[in-house]
């Protein structure tokens, strides 16, 4: 990772179409709830199957089927506790029930989907990631030998901390990473519903070229301004607008927020060839600083010199 790219929890992936796009990585704090849900589901499945098997055995004939039921229970326990994640991730395109609930998904580090072998490795190696196991018994009585049952997960945490894709050891060995699965996300388009904006935009001098960075700034501003209070909008916009008002020779009592918005409108929304918008009641107003004086001069000259067209 080049050291100047800003810190964030995203990773770029290049697709076979040769397009680079960003995935948002899921770190330990997102993955732990998913793991806990999976743990719950796993145990619930085991308990339900065991109870079901018991009842079936009771219904049919405990004498002949009993042993098979017990063997079946052992096998169920074995399969569910070891292969739950592997099977789920392979069949459901990298998701288990917990992952689905938390909106995350496992994929290959290259952005390709996970396959059975990778799922097998990463799910088995979870045992190592949950290391070291804690033994609650040592707090009660130091004489009994420690029974390690509660996972602390520090190995996995340290592994995630030291890899750029937030991978635990199982992920490293399997070559996978966990990403946040994008659900639907509406396309944000800032609409302009204020009639003053196009009016003001029409006064912005045509020789003012909007640079690429300026366009980006304007877009960021327009997208976020709904979340801010009007006072805060003005405060933010002032930094850029006050020198711009000077440059455009506008009156100084113009709302910075409005002018910012007008610039946005001019950059992104207005048709360059469009005619002047219908100004309605706003017709006749001008934000230009000199316009007040000019109108008066015009009237004065009208009276004295009949050729007003020359003045214009």
């Amino acid at each position, binding site marked *: 990772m080049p050291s100047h790219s800003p810190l964030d929890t995203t990773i770029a992936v290049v697709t076979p179409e040769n397009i680079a796009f960003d995935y948002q990585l899921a770190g330990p704090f997102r993955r732990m709830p998913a793991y806990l849900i999976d743990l719950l589901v796993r145990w619930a499945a085991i308990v339900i199957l065991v109870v079901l098997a018991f009842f079936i055995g009771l219904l049919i004939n405990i004498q002949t089927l009993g042993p098979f039921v017990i*063997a079946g229970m052992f096998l169920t326990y074995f399969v569910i506790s070891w292969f739950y994640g592997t099977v789920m991730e392979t069949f459901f395109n990298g998701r288990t029930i917990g992952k689905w609930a938390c909106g995350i998904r496992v994929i290959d580090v290259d952005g390709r989907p996970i396959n059975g072998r990778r799922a097998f490795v990463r799910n088995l190696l979870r045992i190592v990631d949950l290391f070291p196991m804690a033994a609650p018994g040592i707090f009660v009585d130091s004489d009994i030998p420690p029974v390690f049952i509660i996972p602390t997960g520090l190995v996995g945490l340290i592994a995630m901390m030291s890899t750029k894709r937030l991978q635990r050891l199982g992920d490293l060995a399997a070559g996978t990473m966990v990403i946040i699965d994008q659900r639907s996300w509406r396309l944000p388009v800032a609409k302009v519903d204020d009639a003053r904006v196009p009016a003001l935009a029409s006064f912005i001098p045509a020789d003012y070229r909007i640079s690429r960075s300026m366009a980006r700034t304007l877009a960021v501003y327009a997208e976020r301004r709904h979340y801010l209070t009007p006072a805060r909008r003005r405060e933010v916009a002032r930094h850029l607008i006050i020198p711009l008002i000077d440059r455009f020779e506008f009156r100084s009592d113009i709302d910075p927020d409005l002018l910012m918005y007008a610039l946005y409108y001019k950059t992104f929304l207005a048709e360059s060839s469009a005619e002047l918008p219908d100004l309605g009641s706003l017709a006749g107003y001008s934000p230009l600083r000199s316009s007040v004086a000019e109108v008066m001069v015009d009237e004065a000259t009208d009276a004295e010199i009949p050729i007003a067209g020359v003045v214009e």
Partner: protein
Amino acid sequence: MNVAALLENRRDQWAELELFCDALEKRGKVSASMAANYQGSQGIARFSALYRSACADLALADAYQLPPATVTYLHRLIARSHNQLYRANRFEPARWVDMMFYDAPQQIFADPCVKIASIVFFGLFALAMYMGRNDVLFPGFVEAIIGSAGIEQMEESFEQPLSGSLNHYVPMAGFYIMHNTGIGLRCFVFGLLILPCLYVLSFNAIYLGAAFGYMARPDAVGGDNFFHFVTAHGPFELTAIALAGGAGLRLGVGFFRTCGLMRMESLRESAMRAVPIMAASAALFCMAAFTEGFLSPSPAPYIVKAAWAVLSSGLISFYFVVLGFPRDAFTRTPTANDGQPSPFGFEDPPELTGSGGPNDAA
């Protein structure tokens, strides 16, 4: 063209793509209620066309000066459709057969880690057996390893001649699969940290060896019954433990012996190579468990069990040696020309290690 008009143009297609994603995410396929041209191969073609055009939009986002939020939206949309377009392959049984009967034996035969694990396991096993058998030279060895309580329990359980019924066999087979395969998988997993794997491997070897040695003493109680019990499933089970250890070692060694790859690359590579070994080991564990559940505790005559042991050893040897012998060992015989570059040939470009520049080497 301004951005608003552009977005307006492209929006319909993006919305269509989202619709596809919704349907695919919910059911894994396009639902029947959608329009006819979204179904079947037509639908797939349409979906990929939409996906590609969204990709193109993202590629041109900078040139179009799209607002940042739209770019974020595109990133997410493409990520989402990417996950649907490139889906995980379901399990393919044909591949499994291939893995079990082609990959696994080849890998086992060629892998030095399996050899090391086998030597460690069987060596320690034999050593512990000898030490356990010989009470004069190594007094107290078995007691130190198994503990006197353990010995008593062992003797007690083999005091009576073997007898049993189906009621007993079936659950025991299930239990052995769960318990022993669990140990094998654990051994494999701990291989990532190497030392715990070696510990599990040697502990099992010494423990089992000491038990065998103790029972082989002429004065041991229930010694005959013990061997009656263990003979049949011994070959499967012992080999399975050694293989699980070997697979684990392969995993851990990959991290340290990189063979010119980047460390993580090498770890990944060796993990993928270890999977067939582990699968073979798990299969052996299951076969051992069935033998242990059904044949071993049965009162069948010793000769049957011994025959099964010989047969299973033969099968394992066939699997390892005949299936595992390198396929290209016969086809390619070295000739005198080898190693001498032809004057008309061209030099191979030096192979690049890893994918990146100098940063990756650090």
